[in-house]
């Protein structure tokens, strides 16, 4: 009896922590789609880039602060440049954006293979130690991941709803022409969303790499995950992404703990298929950040 409770508790706590990271990953993806109407298939590779930025910072002896800084700024800068250099010119053609970003993501992964090979790399450990809840043990790192992810999501929420630029983001997501009519330049807003999404992906990469390891293909599963979460939650909705992330996160952890760890990755797809059959517009339709 005690062991059932403890298994349940382990699943709930672990899922709550990992889902926060999933939410962080998915929000960046949905932000770009909700505002600019394009899918960034390099989102997973941006996560990989965040992890390796932290890895190189560690190699250069920059310590944890250097790793954190590198994992945020380099992917953010990269995403901004990707938008300005390529996506901005192709905005009217979403399919071309998908192809271009997919190619970019392959280039990033291959570059890592060239420099680092295909073996996994260990990142500087952000925090050591463990904590206990009712007899179950969890890594401190996951706790930090949970707290930081939620702080970032909270800050984004405040930014979007209570600042002028944030309201501009909402405006563009609802009507490009309406935004133009009040003087908001969509391209500037899009650039901001790409930079935010890049920074979020970078932080996610840092946490993922620090928790597990970093390798060239680590972002692929995250891209699939983002896609599933965003479709489940309703494309373009921040709240939907958070709920979608938790739904999928809990299912995934429950499946791997209770059935088999080889089934990891199945949960997002099962949820995806069910939602597409029952409520194809997603749980929260298409309204953005209600």
């Amino acid at each position, binding site marked *: 009896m005690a062991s059932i409770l403890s298994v349940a508790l382990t699943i709930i706590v672990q899922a709550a922590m990992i889902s926060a990271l999933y939410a962080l990953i998915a929000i960046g993806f949905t932000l770009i789609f909700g505002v600019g109407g394009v899918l960034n298939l390099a989102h997973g590779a941006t996560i990989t880039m965040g992890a390796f930025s932290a890895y190189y910072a560690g190699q250069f002896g920059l310590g944890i602060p250097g790793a954190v800084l590198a994992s945020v700024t380099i992917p953010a800068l990269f995403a901004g440049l990707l938008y300005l250099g390529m996506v901005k010119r192709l905005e009217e053609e979403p399919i071309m954006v998908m192809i271009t970003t997919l190619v970019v993501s392959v280039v990033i992964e291959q570059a890592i293979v060239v420099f680092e090979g295909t073996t996994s790399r260990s990142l500087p450990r952000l925090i050591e130690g463990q904590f206990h809840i009712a007899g179950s043990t969890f890594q401190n790192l996951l706790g930090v991941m949970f707290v930081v992810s939620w702080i970032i999501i909270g800050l984004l929420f405040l930014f979007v709803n209570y600042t*002028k630029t944030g*309201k501009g983001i909402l405006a563009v997501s*609802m009507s490009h*022409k*309406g935004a*133009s*009519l*009040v003087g*908001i330049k969509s391209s500037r807003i899009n650039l901001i969303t790409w930079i935010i999404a890049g920074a979020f992906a970078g932080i996610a990469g840092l946490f993922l790499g620090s928790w597990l390891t970093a390798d060239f293909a680590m972002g692929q599963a995250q891209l699939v995950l983002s896609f599933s979460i965003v479709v489940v939650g309703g494309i373009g909705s921040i709240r939907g992404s958070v709920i979608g992330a938790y739904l999928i996160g809990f299912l995934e952890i429950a499946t791997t703990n209770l059935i088999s760890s080889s089934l990891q990755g199945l949960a997002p797809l099962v949820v995806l298929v069910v939602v597409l059959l029952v409520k194809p517009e997603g749980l929260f339709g298409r309204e953005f950040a209600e």
Partner: protein
Amino acid sequence: MSSDAEGSTGAAVGSRTGGDTILSIDDVHVSYGKVQALNGVDLDIGTGELISVIGPNGAGKSTLANSISGFLPYDGSITYKGEEIDESDPEDLVERGLIQCTEKRDLFGFMSVEDNLDLGTYVRGDYDERLEFVYDLFPTLEERKDQHAHTMSGGEQQMLAIGRALMSDPELLVLDEPTLGLAPVILDDISEGIDRIQEEGVTILLCEQNVTFAMNHADRINLLENGEVVRQGPPSELRDDDYIRESYLGG
């Protein structure tokens, strides 16, 4: 600049009632592929005037409105406050006080009335001062300030669209079909609103299918047909024009 001296057809027919020229449209052509939407339009608007462009569906009224607001490329020249605006983005023109209220309204549907109005001051306009004016103009908007725009009736949405444009403190307000599909009761509110906006000193270009409505408000009327201005003049003159009477005022 040259139109005052040389006189386009318009300047020759209707004497200008406003002050300095705020907008000058000179030989503007617009085509969508092979379809010619505007075919050499000339039009001057003086500061403080209310000029109306009337004409049937497909005459080119919205095309003209969108060319002026920077949404459509065109051949020819449009001058706003003495500067050519051919290369200007719509957003730059908003900053300079040229505001359009579109036929489709283009509101932020999932935002409250007040947030929509707030965004009207994104690049220009003092929020408190403008909000007071807009709420005074359309009290319905204040009553519904927390309601989402997409849940409102067509007439209320039209008031919100005009209200949002007014938040930007326009110098030239381009109103594209503000009466389209509205009930007569709402029409009165909009009509009263337009009068008061003009009293504020805002220059207005009113693109309108409802000829009677346009005649009641405009200082000068331009009849647009197939992309060309075929009649110009003050309403008093055009009411007696046989062609306009037969085709647009029901004989």
